[in-house]
């Protein structure tokens, strides 16, 4: 099984090297591709030095567009499994083997902070948002999800193809689950330990989080209403 770890990075020079080293230590057989999404710092050089392949976008396309680039790449290069990880060090590579192993059985494996208690503690507001989206997605897909905003995921070939075809542009995590369920994919959650970010800060400000809630809710409802039609016309 050829596995590719996709790490979208926008100005993550402070943490990207340790993320790559962490993966090399815990899962030496996987390939790593860093999607350098128009960073203005030294993300590209540092990631290359740390031993990752780097795809540099000519301008900032946003998290969804960057992630999709990774999936298109995985599809073209014929990878069996693609794992998406954050560049800020939130996702410990020690959990990688568990996700990769389960990706053989399910189309998508989501690393969850809440499927059973982990040491991760999140602020009340964020926790509320996470609970809301978990309830919304569980309702729409009729499958219980505990951590729909988790960006720690392993995808098999079917999902690689589907994500190469369509992936939401911004705040993609929640909607992308509903999209896969609509396409008849099997999805499971697995307990995954997560850290607080090592460097940089969350891209989500109070104003953005209002937009986030409304946009993602609308996207989930619309995605559920699309039934089995292709979401994007080509």
């Amino acid at each position, binding site marked *: 099984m050829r596995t590719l770890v996709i790490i979208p990075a926008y100005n993550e020079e402070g943490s990207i090297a340790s993320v790559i080293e962490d993966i090399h230590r815990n899962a030496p057989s996987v390939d790593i591709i860093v999607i350098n999404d128009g960073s203005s710092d030294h993300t590209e050089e540092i990631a290359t030095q740390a031993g990752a*392949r*780097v*795809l*540099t*976008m*000519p*301008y900032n*396309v946003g998290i969804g*567009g960057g992630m*999709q*680039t990774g999936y*298109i*790449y995985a599809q*073209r290069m014929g990878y069996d499994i693609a794992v998406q990880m954050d560049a800020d060090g939130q996702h410990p590579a020690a959990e990688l083997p568990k996700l990769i192993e389960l990706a053989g059985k399910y189309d998508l494996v989501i690393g969850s902070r809440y499927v059973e208690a982990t040491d991760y503690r999140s602020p009340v507001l964020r926790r509320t948002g996470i609970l809301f989206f978990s309830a919304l997605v569980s309702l729409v897909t009729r499958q219980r999800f505990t951590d729909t905003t988790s960006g720690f995921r392993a995808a098999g070939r079917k999902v690689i193809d589907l994500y190469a075809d369509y992936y939401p*542009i911004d705040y993609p995590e929640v909607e992308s689950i509903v999209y896969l369920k609509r396409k008849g994919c099997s999805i499971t959650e697995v307990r995954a330990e997560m850290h607080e970010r090592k460097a940089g800060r969350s891209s989500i400000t109070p104003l953005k989080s209002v937009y986030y809630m409304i946009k993602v809710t609308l996207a989930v409802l619309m995605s559920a209403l699309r039934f089995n039609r292709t979401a*994007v*016309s080509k």
Partner: protein
Amino acid sequence: MSIYVLSVVIAALFLLSILELVRRQKLKEQYSLLWILFSLILLIISFNVSLVERIAEWLGVKYAPAVLFLFGLLFCFAIILHLTIVITRLSSQVLRLTQEVTIMKEREDLHGQND
């Protein structure tokens, strides 16, 4: 010069400018259709002002020019909506192109190292 003559002249000039833009390929035919339709309606109304009054009466609108404003506004909404649809399509196309170029560039670098 009365306002009627003036409005006919303006409407005719408007229609001509649209057609000229299409001729010079500054405006695509597909995007010009809404504008041509709009300028034709403008021309018809300018020639036949009582038409607006009849429509106003028929709709039960007391102040006839309000009908003009209403349809003018509706047309603006229609064309703006059309534009945002076009922008949505364009931005997905640009994103896909960016992704393709990014991947091609990496492969080229890879081949460059092998040679």
